């Protein structure tokens, strides 16, 4: 013990007490240690020491097993943490590596016209479709205003069929 010697004790006491108090304290300490050394406490019984050693030897295997279990639990929890972290990291990496999602648009113009480079032909087709639609539109208006003299139901059915046909042609290009 480093502060048992008088010099270091004095140095320590001087930090907390004035000179006289420090001197008196150091003297008291020395005297008290002499008193305690002069009145030694009884020694532990040999039988007690033997019993303690036997008890320790008996407890050690159980303690080792407990220590082993603790280690296993620790390892399992570390492994679980690593697996969770790895799963999360892999998910992030996969997300990062993916191509950006393509936005799908509903095509309003038939693909054949859209992809075609023949602008003149496309214009002609569009002009024909527009004319046909305008014609049908006119017939529908006539029907609504009662100008049609024939069988109205049949005319409407015919118009509907015509419209379906045009629509189908239009989308086919």
């Amino acid at each position: 013990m480093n502060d048992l010697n008088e010099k270091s004790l004095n140095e320590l006491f001087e930090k907390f007490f004035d000179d006289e108090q420090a001197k008196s304290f150091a003297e008291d300490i020395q005297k008290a240690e002499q008193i305690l050394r002069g009145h030694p406490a009884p020694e532990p019984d040999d039988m007690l020491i033997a019993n303690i050693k036997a008890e320790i030897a008996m407890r050690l295997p159980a303690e080792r097993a407990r220590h082993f279990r603790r280690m296993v639990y620790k390892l399992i929890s570390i492994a679980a943490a690593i697996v969770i972290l790895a799963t999360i990291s892999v998910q992030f990496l996969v997300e990062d590596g993916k191509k950006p999602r393509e936005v799908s648009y509903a095509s309003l113009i038939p693909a054949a016209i859209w992809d075609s480079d023949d602008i003149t032909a496309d214009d002609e087709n569009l002009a024909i479709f527009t004319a046909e639609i305008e014609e049908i539109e006119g017939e529908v208006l006539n029907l609504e205003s009662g100008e049609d003299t024939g069988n109205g139901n049949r005319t409407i059915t015919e118009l509907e069929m015509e419209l379906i046909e045009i629509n189908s042609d239009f989308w086919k290009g």
Partner: protein
Amino acid sequence: MAESDDLARIITGCKNGDSRCFSKVVDMYASRCYGYFYRLTGDNDISDELLSELFVKLVEKIGSYKGVSFESWLFKIATNIFHDHLRSKQRRKKLLDVLKKQLESEITEHKQSDDEQSDKLQIRLKTLDTDTRELIMLRFYSQLSFKEIAEIRSEPIGTTLAKMHRGIKKLRQVMEG
């Protein structure tokens, strides 16, 4: 230096569960720890129990020892064991009725006076309060520095020194007066 190397080797052995290393630790510290318990309790049987408990705790806790001063660590456990003993003694006292208490104290006083006739110090130590007695005994039996003692007691070193100063003065008075 060689002594501390030996101790380090012994402690490593204890950590590996070597019973011979534990036996060495018992041989090295049993006497000092027993003296500490005896001076605080004044009773051989209780000191026997507390010493056994200390070494059982040592086996359980050696894995958590992190290489600070071994004496400091061991006496910290000893101090805690003594405090637990005081608390359980307090609880037992509350449970006993007045008659039982009177009877018990008569018996223990009689028993202790037989033991203590040959030990003037133990009788005089009773005039000191438990805390002061504990502090003086910790210093003497653990041989720790005041700094380490202050750490064990979780108090500033100045407080430890002031208490020690008062306690030792009183001890000198009762022993020399």
